[in-house]
């Protein structure tokens, strides 16, 4: 067997290199030239709507799909023609794929069948793996007598017992209810930190990806639209599509104004908000003068109460068009004077802070640093 123990690379070095990976299903172009590096020891997520090719890419890395073009390099080795049982990857399947005719311990120990360990060592390894996922006493249980969360843990223990270089997780939390999902998210992060193995997670849930990942590749229609750490992805989405997919964002029409040379800033005139200047670094290739669009997150806009003033006088006024009260938060849809559509503003409810009424006039403070220009 080619599977060796533990990660051989220092943390941060590329363990998987994807070079122009293509996949066709007949005429359907499922992967359109995916290039990326996945670093050893990181928690990497493939995020996108269904049909974007994220699962196909994961299965191609595992060896279940032959690719039509490009190269997948795993730990420096070209994986072309290497079957799944000879790749140093293990997978947690969406359905968990727990073998129903075996006990929990037999499931977890399945991958050790071909190892040279003595049966005593194997038993100890299984016990350790079960302990690691918090199922220490469940070894003798029949596999079909487990709950969803327990199945998930068995699948994890079974995949991790071989100490793969990369653990592949195909929507592992989608079958769990909301509470269990949140518990497992935290447990997966802890587990990943503990074992130090590279995790690649496929998910369509942007929140899940933000919570768990070191880096996220957002995929649309067989291509990576953006690959960044969660914070950059959230604060600086590089396209309207990514911005719409991750969290909530307001879009406002803007005009890019001509600026003098070497300003390091881009001057804008934003509908409803007024003139703004943003860092030129946001548009490495430069921004075209003329019509454009900016995005701003609901939490980056602040309702000003009587007597409050905005820093630098960046204020805008509008009318409250909708009030959605969530207890801890209130969402307002405010139609700014001069804007074509209302913007959503989220405000934390605090003692002494009155909830605005429908139809009331409101003043907003805004900050150009929280503004994204789609250039």
């Amino acid at each position, binding site marked *: *067997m080619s*599977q060796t123990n533990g990660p051989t690379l220092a943390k941060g070095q590329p363990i998987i290199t994807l070079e122009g990976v293509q996949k066709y299903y007949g005429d359907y172009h499922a992967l359109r030239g995916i290039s990326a590096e996945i670093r050893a020891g990181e928690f990497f997520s493939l995020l996108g709507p269904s049909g974007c090719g994220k699962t196909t890419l994961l299965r191609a890395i*595992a060896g*279940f799909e032959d690719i039509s073009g490009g190269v997948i390099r795993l730990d420096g080795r070209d994986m072309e023609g290497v*079957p*799944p*049982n000879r790749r140093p*990857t*293990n*997978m947690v*399947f*969406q*359905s968990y*794929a727990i*073998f*129903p*005719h075996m006990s929990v311990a037999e499931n977890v120990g*399945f*991958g050790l*069948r*071909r190892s040279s360990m003595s049966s005593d060592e194997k038993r100890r390894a299984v016990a350790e793996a079960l302990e690691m996922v918090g199922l220490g006493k469940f070894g003798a249980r029949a*596999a*079909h007598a487990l709950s969803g969360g327990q199945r998930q843990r068995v699948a994890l223990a*079974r*995949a991790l017992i*071989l100490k793969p270089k990369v653990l592949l997780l195909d929507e592992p939390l989608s079958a769990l209810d909301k509470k269990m999902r949140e518990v497992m998210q935290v447990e997966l992060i802890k587990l990943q930190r503990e074992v130090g193995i590279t995790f690649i997670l496929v998910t369509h849930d942007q929140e899940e990806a933000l919570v768990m990942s070191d880096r996220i590749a957002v995929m649309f229609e067989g291509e990576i639209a953006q690959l960044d750490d969660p914070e950059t992805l959230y604060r600086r989405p590089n396209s309207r599509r990514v911005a719409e997919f991750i969290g909530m964002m307001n879009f406002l029409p803007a005009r890019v104004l001509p600026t003098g040379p070497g300003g390091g800033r881009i001057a804008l005139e934003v509908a409803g908000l007024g003139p703004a200047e943003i860092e030129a670094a946001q548009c490495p290739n430069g921004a075209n003068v003329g019509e454009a669009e900016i995005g701003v997150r609901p939490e980056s806009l602040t309702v000003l109460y009587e007597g409050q003033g905005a820093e630098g006088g960046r204020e805008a006024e509008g009318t409250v068009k909708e009030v959605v009260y969530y207890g801890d938060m209130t969402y307002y849809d405010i139609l700014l004077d001069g804007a074509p559509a209302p913007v959503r503003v989220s405000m934390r409810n605090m003692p002494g802070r009155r909830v605005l009424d429908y139809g009331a006039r409101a003043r907003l403070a805004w900050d150009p640093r929280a503004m994204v220009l789609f250039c």
Partner: protein
Amino acid sequence: MKLTPLTVFAGLYLLVLYAPIALLPLFAFNDGTVIAFPLQGFTLQWFAALLDTPALHEATLNSLIIAVSTSVFATILGLFAARAATRYNFPAKGGIVGFIMLPLVLPEVIVAISLLIVLMQLGLDSGTWSIIAGHTLICTPFAIAILQGSFSNMDRSLEEAAVDLGETPWSTFRLITLPLVTPGIIASLLICFTISLDEFIIAFFLSGNEPTLPVYLWGQLRFPARLPVVMALGTILVILSVLLLVLAETFRRRGLKRAGLKDTGGFL
């Protein structure tokens, strides 16, 4: 229970369906050669007569050989076809599977006559092996139907998981696929056995001078004195068939339970 028109209908329906079969054991134990009421008293002599009829033993042996061979061949063919139909996509898949399933609805007389003509044209003798061929033809669709259920109930990622954990495709088949479809295989064997054992038309056309059990039974009906013996034999056959079908269904359900699945309506 209230006596609504529907319960009356259901009662009548069951009566018409099963009363004739209930007559079988009734007259099998009746001490008289005439099949008529009133009953004449209890006897086991008809069953005893079964024991010293050499022709019957030969027919039974023929039937067993045919039924066992048929169930094995049909199940093996069904296994291949069912796996291919559930796991792979290939051109004209629907048409091919449809053609294989066709004997399920094809009149058996047609199948029997065509087989006879083919054999005669080839100048071959009909006999046990030709009945096995005919029975395999009509049993394979049943085997496919049962095994397709077993395969499609099985999560495909189970096999992938085994390969992912280091097993080869062959050891995966042995360790994962086979244990999970075994109940289906057993159910298929039992049902094909039962169908072959009871089958009359093909056996009648092709048996030549080696009759199977149903063909032998039919021949005995010409002698009124033998009628109670036929009844006794019929009784045994009915009990055997029911037992085998119950057994087959038990295995099918056990398979579902083992795979942790809900019963979605059996084959029977």
